[in-house]
């Protein structure tokens, strides 16, 4: 049976083209790889190569034909042992060529009511329950110890490294210098240079190397001296770590933790003072955690190290030295993806994360003095965002103020406002308000820096505004 040569699609967008000229004539022998014709596409003139071998039996579309649709038969090739008589019967019986668009069109599901079209996945989140989980994260009566966030993070890494030889930590100054911010203090001594690895200043390189090690089955903790420098490495965080599991259809992923201090420190100006929560929170394939207290830092970092997915773990330099109660438990972990009510209240919900929880708690104290009982929620995880806890709170308070250190546009406040539209519209008694960093690069001057960052009075003012109190 003669072999049909079809008008090829020679670019992702080509639907038709001009058959400019034939380079072979009827009767010519062709072998695989021979250029047989030239075709003008929407972009360029391309050569068509034969894939099959045989004799060019008949040219069906002559030189110069315009608007030849993709997949139209343009010639017939006679296979070994066939002669021209084969052309007579077959040309007529040849099945109509399939349209290039057909497979997609035919297989495209009726998506009108398809859950796959929903922006939230096949199963919509369950209706928020009015009552929160009453199961305490720490058993009643657990002994507590005062630890700084810095110590809690170190203890989390040390415990996980003791438990699992696959876990190692790498980054700039993590070993011999004991950590640029002393978070990895003492780890080199306990775990040796095999597992506590000083890197050159080469963020792109060691982030990629870490992801490769994770693909091979290790459990790297990659420390960025600050998240500002991770912009050099964001390609590997997103393109290599976050997307691989999906691109691989589940065949392999990258269980890795990227961690380090995020956000403004003090007086280090624009390139060293940026808040990245919602940058990473935007990207599917990542989990993003931004703890406030030492206990949460410990419990969530341990969970992040065990998580089979890439986790972006955003710390805060100003919090490193602050002390909190941390439970004395052999193995204290917290679930990623759960917010926490830091202070109950009934008049207005204030959400915050990381250092901004301190601002929100101070504001709540001030508001209490004015007879407003604010409920303060520490989001703790940026992705997946525990919107149910926020919705549950707003069902009670009917008002929401979102506090974040980062820039306002396309930020957490914007996201939470949309959550309210989708899940709590009927419960709102006032428009959602956001308190954010100002929409400028971070200034150096002390007074300007102060102005650029959210302050307690800003939060108080926003809360009063949504309560219609002046």
């Amino acid at each position: 049976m003669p072999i049909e040569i079809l008008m090829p699609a020679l670019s992702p967008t080509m639907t038709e083209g001009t058959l400019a000229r034939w380079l072979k004539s009827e009767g010519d022998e062709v072998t695989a790889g021979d250029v047989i014709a030239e075709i003008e596409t929407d972009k360029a003139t391309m050569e068509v190569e034969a894939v099959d071998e045989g004799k060019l039996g008949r040219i069906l579309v002559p030189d110069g034909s315009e608007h030849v649709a993709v997949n139209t038969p343009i010639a017939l090739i006679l296979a070994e042992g066939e002669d021209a008589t084969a052309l007579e019967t077959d040309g007529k019986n040849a099945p109509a060529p399939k349209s290039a668009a057909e497979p997609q069109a035919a297989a495209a599901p009726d998506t009108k009511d398809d859950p796959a079209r929903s922006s939230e996945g096949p199963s919509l989140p369950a209706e928020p329950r009015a009552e929160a989980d009453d199961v305490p994260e720490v058993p009643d009566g657990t002994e507590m110890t005062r630890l700084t966030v810095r110590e809690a993070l170190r203890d989390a890494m040390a415990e996980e490294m003791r438990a699992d030889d696959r876990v190692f930590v790498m980054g700039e100054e993590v070993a011999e210098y004991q950590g640029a911010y002393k978070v990895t203090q003492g780890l080199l001594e306990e775990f040796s240079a095999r597992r506590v690895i000083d890197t050159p200043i080469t963020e792109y390189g060691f982030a990629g190397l870490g992801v490769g090690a994770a693909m091979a089955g290790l459990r790297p903790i990659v420390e960025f001296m600050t998240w500002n420098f991770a912009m050099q490495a964001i390609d590997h965080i997103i393109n290599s770590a976050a997307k691989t599991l999906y691109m691989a259809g589940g065949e392999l992923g990258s269980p890795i933790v990227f961690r380090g201090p995020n956000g403004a420190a003090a007086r280090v100006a624009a390139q060293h003072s940026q808040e990245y929560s919602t940058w990473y929170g935007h990207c599917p394939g990542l989990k993003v955690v931004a703890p406030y207290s030492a206990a949460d830092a410990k419990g969530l970092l341990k969970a992040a190290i065990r998580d089979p997915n890439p986790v972006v773990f955003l710390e805060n330099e100003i919090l490193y030295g602050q002390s909190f109660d941390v439970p004395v438990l052999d193995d204290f972990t917290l679930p990623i993806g759960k917010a926490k009510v830091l202070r109950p209240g009934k008049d207005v919900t204030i959400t915050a994360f990381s250092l901004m929880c301190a601002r929100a708690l101070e504001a709540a104290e001030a508001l209490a003095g004015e007879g407003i009982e604010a409920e303060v929620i520490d989001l703790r995880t940026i992705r997946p965002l525990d919107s149910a806890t926020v919705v549950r709170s707003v069902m009670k308070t009917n008002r929401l103020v979102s506090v974040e250190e980062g820039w306002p546009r396309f930020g957490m406040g914007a996201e939470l406002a949309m959550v309210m539209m989708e899940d709590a519209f009927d419960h709102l008694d006032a428009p959602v308000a956001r308190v954010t960093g100002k929409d400028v690069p971070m200034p150096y001057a002390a007074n300007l820096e102060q102005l650029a960052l959210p302050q307690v009075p800003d939060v108080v003012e926003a809360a009063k505004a949504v309560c219609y109190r002046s």
Partner: protein
Amino acid sequence: MATERTSTRSRRGASGRGQSKKTALPDADTLLAYYREMLLLRRFEEKAGQLYGMGLIGGFCHLYIGQEAVATGIQHALEPGDTVITGYRDHGHMLATGMDPKRVMAELTGRIDGYSKGKGGSMHMFARDKGFFGGHGIVAGQVPLGAGLAFAHKYREDGGITVCYFGDGATNQGQVYETFNMAALWSLPIVFVIENNRYGMGTSQKRAAAGQHLYERGVAYGIPGEEVDGMDVLAVRDAADKATAHARKDGPIILEALTYRYRGHSMSDPAKYRTKDEVQEMREQRDPIEQLKKKMVDAEVTDEDQLKAMDRDIREIVNESARFAQDSPEPDPAELWTDVLVEA
């Protein structure tokens, strides 16, 4: 002197750049295996090009035609447990590692039986059981990832090495040198194979790369480099044996394979940046498959009948993969939401 620490050796002989010296032929079975594998890569890619033309494969599709001797020769030097990683011109490496042509083709057509359930496409397939770690679409992204695979070999002391393939175009990316630095500092067991096919998309190496030779790009880090005729599978195998032995014992090494792609950069590239004569000359005089065929026939290790039979076998494998890739269904719409995260 610092330069004495490096052992940058060229394999160039009087016969010209990258031409290897004559060596004794391997046994008939080995030769036939090389021939068969290169033929599979060639015919598979031709079929992929055809399916692309029929609209069955979409998007980008970078064919390996012309470069078959590189992946074939290197793979034969590897041991079980070694790992391989490459960029987006990756179908040849997949087949060389022993991945199933049916499932590779089904991934190209975006079907559920593809290696990535149709969610990765031409540039993104992975097979841990074959030691194949992709399939990466960002130029040079696979280089630090490859160093990470090598790091894991060293961390586990499992004796394995990594082969990290990248093109001449990738050698100008900064992350390559970040990786060279760490690979040398930590003596990682890795062979960096630069497949120099002379063009980074439409820009010739001469217009993109300063310096004479890409295999010298590791000199500053003390990484030795070798050059090999990438159109000669026997030369590639020989060089790969030496390079992998070095990596296993002494750390990173660069192998620059001088090769050529017959087709454009991707399917939509008319390749106007080079002359037809240049392409024709490579095809007629340097083709890796024809060169090996001639050597085998001259040495009388095979005959036309045996080669014809092998050709028929390969065509049937490739045709079967094309049928399979068209018969396999598209992924269920529910697959849209799977594999975003590993559910704990």
